[in-house]
């Protein structure tokens, strides 16, 4: 049974802002009318979504022959990512579970067709019809059980199974996710591989906590020649945290927080000028400072 939203959600929203939305309420309740409007009118979110969608489309590695493709936008919400798809000239179908978000999309007159549906129930599309699928910040919702009858693993299985079926051969699916933990990311990846997908994880800006973005790139049918296919521009780093085992398509995801041996940081160090400046400052203050000579700030042997 679905929770009734009116009394519960306001109480939940008084929780700290740092709580992830998927821990507060199921998506169709969290994204009610006011939240949907807030989400879509926030310029920061619009900008982020546009950037993420552009990157996801890049990673889809669609052939550059100017032929529009037929794509699927999973968790399309209010159509922010869908608009990016339209701008790139492709046709798309959008799927979302929140009616409020879809209503906002209708108001914004998006060009793609919208479906109100639950991805964990299976996609309900015919075999081999979709040329590519993207999903921006939506798949992590599948990992939570929102109803008593839900079992996240089975929902993930239904989702990936139906997605594999409806993608045409050689097509890719790119998911931008914010996984809560390593375990969650591994769960998603494992279910995808069990469904028959190949592929791995692409991480942009892996060393920056703010800018770090993860994209799960899955391929249907043929083994990818290179996950770096979609790399354009000099800013982002494609870091493949996977190694494909050819026997059963297992992909290992390395733990980024693995403790490393403490290395001596090879800092440039502060030059002679800086040292002289500091000594001058200290002299002005009236301290007793040794005189400057040719030995001042000379590079010492590493053992010092």
């Amino acid at each position, binding site marked *: 049974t679905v929770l009734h939203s009116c009394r519960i959600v306001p109480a939940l929203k008084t929780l700290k802002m740092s709580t992830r939305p998927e821990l507060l309420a199921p998506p169709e309740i969290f994204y009610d009318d006011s939240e949907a409007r807030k989400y879509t009118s926030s310029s920061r979110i619009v900008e982020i979504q546009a950037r993420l969608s552009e990157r996801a489309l890049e990673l889809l590695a669609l052939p550059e022959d100017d032929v529009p493709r037929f794509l699927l936008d999973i968790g399309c919400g209010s159509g922010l990512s869908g608009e990016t798809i339209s701008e790139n000239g492709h046709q798309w179908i959008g799927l979302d579970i929140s009616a409020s978000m879809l209503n906002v999309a209708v108001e914004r007159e998006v060009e793609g*067709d919208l479906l109100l549906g639950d991805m964990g129930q299976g996609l309900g599309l015919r075999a081999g019809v979709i040329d590519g699928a993207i999903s921006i910040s939506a798949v992590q919702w599948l990992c939570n059980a929102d109803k008593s009858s839900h079992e996240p693993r089975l929902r993930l299985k239904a989702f990936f199974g139906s997605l594999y079926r409806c993608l045409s051969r050689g097509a890719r699916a790119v998911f931008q996710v914010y996984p809560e933990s390593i375990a969650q990311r591994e769960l998603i990846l494992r279910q995808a591989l069990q469904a028959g997908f190949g592929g791995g994880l692409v991480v942009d800006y892996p060393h920056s906590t703010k800018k770090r973005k993860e994209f799960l790139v899955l391929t249907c049918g043929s083994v990818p020649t290179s996950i770096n296919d979609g790399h354009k521009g000099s800013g982002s780093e494609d870091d493949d945290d996977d190694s494909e085992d050819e026997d059963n398509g297992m992909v290992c995801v390395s733990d980024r927080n693995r403790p490393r041996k403490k290395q001596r940081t090879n800092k440039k160090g502060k030059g002679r000028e800086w040292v002289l400046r500091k000594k001058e400052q200290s002299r002005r203050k009236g301290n007793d400072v040794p005189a400057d000579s040719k030995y001042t700030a000379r590079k010492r042997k590493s053992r010092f």
Partner: protein
Amino acid sequence: MRLITHNMLSCNIKGVTNGFPLKIEAEKVVEKEVDFNPDFLRHMFAKIEWKALVEAARSMGYAELPEDSPDATVIESADETFLRKLHHALLELHLEEGALVCPETGRKFPVNKGIPNMLLHEDEVKQTVCIDLRKGNEPTRIRSPKDRVLMQDVCIDLSLQVP
């Protein structure tokens, strides 16, 4: 919802063997102009189920499409009359209000503001039950909605189809 999407939708209900195509009950149809792109139409032509498209177009009030699927020569030719008709049927007809009906069970999926509601009820979803051999054959389930804990993959995966 346009016919290009309808041609891809299939009924997902548990137990249904052939849920395609969904019958259209049209209450309100709107025509919206879309840029003509012959490359896209040629690309999509191989994926379209022709009979279903003709039937659906007819139920939306457009009967210009030929009954039989045309062969490749017509598509590849420079003559755009057929492609124009296909374009109109596929991309320019919108079902705004109405319903989609499953051919096997008769279940109706309502269409409002152009959005079909494809949400399945609890009993219509294909359930597979995972047996946890450690606990002695009790299916593992989340007991309450408050239990938003990530299910760890501890069971041995033996999925049975529950009829």
